[in-house]
């Protein structure tokens, strides 16, 4: 009988970091020193790998600092019977978190919101006319959430789509910028995101110079927005190059 209780007992985590930290009041005017020692305009090193999941048509694993995401793409496969006929393809996205992704167990953010944003970000880049009547499913699992989750999920999803052979207009790269006081920090970690006054996320297709999604929250002045957008677009084009070299490596690797 050991270990079984009829009702789930309430538990709490002994971790000190669980308690909400109060934002230091001096932040508004002073410089913010980043916990991982990066410069304010420096992104985390990106580790990207395709072919992570064998059962899927295409998949990718992305690790940006402490944010680790796996995305699997299935399809194009038959749409559900209830769906009406459509002469363009359909995209179905779903994001979920593991229970150990956040420091305190079970504190995952709203995944329906993230799923719908992922859908909107990728929709513009996929050539839906190339697979009429069928659906492409994009499923993401966040293994560890270390900040800037949605941009990493979007980038990883675009790699997975390319790995699956789905026709795309261009790769999709995504970066976000956090505003803390007078500092603009690119690719924020969770601690920075918890103190932020505002955030700006851009998802774009770097080679075509087209933006598929832009999200701005919080307080922003116009010159700040311009500066943040420029930062994001530069970072996205660099990220696009990294993604392409990852795909090239994957394509040429197994041939030896």
């Amino acid at each position, binding site marked *: 009988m050991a270990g079984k209780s009829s009702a789930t007992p309430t538990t709490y985590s002994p971790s000190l970091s669980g308690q909400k930290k109060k934002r230091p009041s001096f932040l508004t005017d002073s410089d913010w020193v980043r916990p991982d020692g990066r410069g304010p305009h420096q992104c985390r090193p990106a580790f990207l790998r395709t072919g992570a*999941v064998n059962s899927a048509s295409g998949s990718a694993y992305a690790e940006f600092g402490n944010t680790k995401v796996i995305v699997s793409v299935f399809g194009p496969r038959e749409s559900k019977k209830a769906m009406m006929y459509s002469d363009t393809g359909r995209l179905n996205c779903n994001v979920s978190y593991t229970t150990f992704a956040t420091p305190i167990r079970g504190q995952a953010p709203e995944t329906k919101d993230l799923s719908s944003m992922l859908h909107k970000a990728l929709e513009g880049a996929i050539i839906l006319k190339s697979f009429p009547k069928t659906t492409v499913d994009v499923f993401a699992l966040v293994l560890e959430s270390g900040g800037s989750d949605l941009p990493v999920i979007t980038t990883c999803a675009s790699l997975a789509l390319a790995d699956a052979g789905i026709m795309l207009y261009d790769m999709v790269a995504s970066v976000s910028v956090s505003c803390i006081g007078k500092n603009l920090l690119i690719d924020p970690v969770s601690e920075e995101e918890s103190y932020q006054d505002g955030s700006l996320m851009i998802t774009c297709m770097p080679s075509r110079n087209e933006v598929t999604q832009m999200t701005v929250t919080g307080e922003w002045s116009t010159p700040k927005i311009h500066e943040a957008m420029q930062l994001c677009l530069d970072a996205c084009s660099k990220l696009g190059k990294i993604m392409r070299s990852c795909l090239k490596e994957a394509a040429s690797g197994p041939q030896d």
Partner: protein
Amino acid sequence: MASMGGPNDLSSEMELDAFRRLFPICFHERHLLESIRPDGRALGRARDTTLMLGAVASANGSALAKIGCTTMLAAIKLEVMTPTAEAPDEGCIAIDFHMPPICSPLVRPGRPAELAPVISKQLSDTILSSGMINLKDLCLVSGKAAWMAYLDIYCLDADGALFDAALLSAVAAFSHLQIPVVSFNDDGRIVLISDDNSGAMKEKEPVNKEKIKLKLNNLPFSLTCILHKNYILADPTSEEESIMETFLTVVLDSSFQLVSLNKPGGPGLAHTSSIQECITLTRQRVKEVQKILQEAISDMEVD
């Protein structure tokens, strides 16, 4: 007019992949006649197994297990609970097995896989009844506080033999588990003692002296075998599982005692001789897996 000779006539004319899709049983039986399987393994051999401990840095114990392409990620997070009145000096373990939609084309979001709660319950029963963990080791202060270990296992890639990989990752995660040092703070709650605060916390008596590992006895390991006609195939892939539906899971512990035997029905019936043979195959497998686990543990300690 050619008479309908069935698949045997077509095999010489059809492409291999098409034959494999259209006549899977015939395709596999052709291989079994030669005592081999489509991926080149002998009938009783399991796929390559790798283990990596400490895959999730934020968890108290974790492991990534791969058997062939089947990948399982297990992580243990410890939280504090009040022990029940009937067992005031015992902690608790909650085991949950998840199959997220990324792992297989058969799993849809919003509709959990049928297999997930079945494997979850099987794992729970196996781990708790094998006596691997003494729940009294999870006690902090008798009657007031005890550890609740949440073991979450995520299937990252489903390619057959899910129970075996899940059990292996769970056992490896428990081998890696380190219980942190905690003490009571002023509100009567248990808090972690972090290394930099150790000077300030000298007034607070730590409840346990140092980070300790759980003492594990009799680790359980398992092997799933498929019974098809008079063949026994060890460690099936998902393709083999989908066409040959009778399987038998044997769980032995490290002293080769039987922990559990599960044959969940199926169209094939098994003689006791087949069951004996499965147990023998499992015994060999236990030796292999114990070695792999030992290597993984010693790799961690070197770091």
